[in-house]
C-alpha cells in the first residue's frame, strides 16, 4: 500500500534566482491511499503537480511537509523495489534494448551472462526478443514504451509508477499499451500508480481514480472507486481483445468519465486556459 499523508511539495523559484530562498508550491496538503496489487490513477490538468507526486513517491524529491509511506515505511530516497516509467520513457540512447532492459541488474553489479539470462524471459514476455540489439532511436514509440516496461520489470518491483506513460502514443497503440499494462498486472503481484491527464484512461485502467485540481499548488480533491476495474484486472471478463474491452462502451464507464470530468471542472470558474481555478 502507498499512502500520501498531507503531502506538500515546493520548488525553488527559478534555478538562477538570486533569491533562491523563494519557493513555488507545486502540491499542497494531499492525502491518498493506493491499494496494494491494484491500479490507481491520478488524473488532473497539466501543471497540477501530478509529476511532483510521482517523484515524491519514487523518492526522487523530498516533500516540504507531510510524508509518503510505501508498505508502511516512510520514503527517504530511492527505494529498491519501486520502478518508475517516465513520460519520455527515460531510455538511455547509447544502450541497446537489451542493455536498457538489463540496466537495473547492471547497477546491482550482476555479471554479464547472468544479466542476459535474467533479461531474456522479460524481453520474450514483452515481444522484444527480436529487437535486443536495436538502439532506442530505431524503435517506434510503442516499442520504446515496452522497453521501458521491460526495464521496470527486470528490477522485480512491487510498486510501479507511471508518469503519463501513454500520452505520446497514437490512439490505437495507446489502447494496445493499456491492454498490455493490464496483462502485465494480471501476471504478477504489482501495485501500479498511473499519472495521466486523460479521463478515459484513468476510468478504464484504475480501481481508484484520484482527481487533482488547482495549480501552484495542486491538490488531490476527490476519489472515485471503480470496483469493476478491480475485478477486470484480476479476472478478464467479456469478449474484447483482453476480455474487458467492452467496458469502454458500458454505460457505467461513460457515467464515470462524466463524473470525473465534472470533478475536474470542480464546479468552479474556469480560467482563460480552460483549467479549473
Amino acid at each position, binding site marked *: 500500500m502507498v499512502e500520501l499523508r498531507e503531502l506538500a511539495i515546493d520548488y525553488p523559484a527559478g534555478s538562477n534566482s538570486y533569491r533562491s530562498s523563494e519557493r513555488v508550491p507545486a502540491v499542497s496538503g494531499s492525502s491518498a491511499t493506493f491499494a496494494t496489487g491494484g491500479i490507481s490513477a491520478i488524473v488532473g490538468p497539466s501543471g497540477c503537480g501530478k509529476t511532483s507526486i510521482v*517523484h515524491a513517491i*519514487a*523518492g*526522487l524529491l523530498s516533500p516540504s511537509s507531510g510524508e509518503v509511506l510505501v508498505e508502511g515505511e516512510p520514503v527517504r530516497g*530511492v527505494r*529498491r523495489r*519501486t*520502478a*518508475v516509467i*517516465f*513520460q*519520455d*520513457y*527515460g*531510455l*538511455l*540512447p*547509447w*544502450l541497446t534494448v537489451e542493455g536498457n532492459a538489463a*540496466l*537495473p541488474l*547492471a*547497477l*546491482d553489479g550482476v555479471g554479464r551472462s547472468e544479466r542476459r539470462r535474467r533479461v531474456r524471459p522479460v524481453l520474450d514476455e514483452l515481444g522484444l526478443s527480436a529487437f535486443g540489439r*536495436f*538502439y532506442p*532511436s*530505431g524503435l517506434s514509440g510503442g516499442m520504446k514504451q515496452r522497453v521501458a516496461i521491460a*526495464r521496470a520489470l527486470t*528490477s522485480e518491483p512491487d510498486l510501479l509508477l507511471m508518469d503519463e506513460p501513454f500520452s505520446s502514443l497514437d490512439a490505437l497503440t495507446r489502447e494496445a499499451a493499456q491492454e498490455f499494462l493490464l496483462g502485465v498486472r494480471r501476471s504478477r503481484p504489482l501495485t501500479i500508480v498511473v499519472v495521466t491527464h486523460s479521463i478515459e484512461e484513468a476510468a478504464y485502467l484504475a480501481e481508484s481514480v484520484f482527481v487533482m485540481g488547482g495549480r501552484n499548488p495542486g491538490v488531490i480533491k476527490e476519489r472515485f472507486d471503480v470496483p469493476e476495474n478491480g475485478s477486470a484486472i484480476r479476472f478478464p471478463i467479456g469478449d474484447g481483445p483482453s476480455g474487458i474491452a467492452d467496458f469502454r462502451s458500458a454505460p457505467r464507464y461513460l457515467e464515470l468519465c462524466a463524473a470525473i470530468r465534472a470533478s475536474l471542472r470542480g464546479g468552479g470558474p474556469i480560467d482563460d486556459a480552460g483549467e479549473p481555478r
Partner: protein
Amino acid sequence: MRLPPGLRKAASVAIAAVGIVAVWALAAAALGKPFLPGPLRTFEAFGALIRDGYLGRHALASASRVFWALAASFVPAAALGLAAGRSRRVDTFVSPLVYILHPLPKVAFLPIILLVFGLGEASKIILVGLIVFSQILVSARDSSRRVPGQLMDSVRSLGASRLDLALRVVVPSALPDLLTSLRVSLGTAVAVLFLAETFATETGLGYLIVDAWARVAYAEMYAGIVALSLLGLGFFVAVDIAERLLCPWRSYRP
C-alpha cells in the same frame, strides 16, 4: 553502386583532394613562378624526402607532440568540465578559469611557455595541450549541463549512485560533443604546432617547412605543407574511427 558509408566518405575525400591538386596544378602552370612549384615536382620532392627518412622523422616528431598533448589534456579537461557542468561547487572554480583562459589566444603564451618550460619538447606539448584543454573543458561543461533531467531521474530511480550516473549517463551523453570539439581543436592544434616548431627546434614539420623556405627549396617546402595537411587529416580520421567505435548508437540506421 552503393558503397558502405566509410568508403563513400573516403571516396569523397579523395575526389576533393584530386580537385585541389588540379586547381594547384593550373595555378602553378599559369603563374610559372619558382615559389609555386606544381604538384608533380612537389610529390617528387615528397617521395625523395620520404625515401631518405627525413620527412618521416619530422612528421613523427610533430605527430608525437600532438599525440602527447592530446593524451595529457583530453581526459583531465573532460573530467573537470563534466564535473563543472553537473556540480555548482566545482563550477565555482572552473567557470572563472573558462572565462579567462578560453577567449585568450593561447599562441600568445608561446614566449612565456618557452621562458618557463625551456626550449625543449615540454613547451611545445604544453602549448598544444593548453589549446585542446580549454576547448574540451568548455564543451564538456556545456554538454554535461544539457543532459536531460528526465534521463538522470530515470536512472536515479533505479538506485544509481553518483558514480553510476557520471559513468553511465553523463559521460556517454557528452561523448559525441567531446569528440566534435576534439576535431575542432585538432585543427587549431596543428596550426599552433606549426608556429611552435618554427622556434628553437630542429625537428617537426614546422621546422622542415621554414628551413626549406630559408634554403629556397620550394618543392621541399610544399612537400612539408602536404605532410602537415596529411597529419591533420590523419588525426581527423582517427577521431572519426574513435567515434564509430565509442558511439555506435549514433551511426544507427534503421
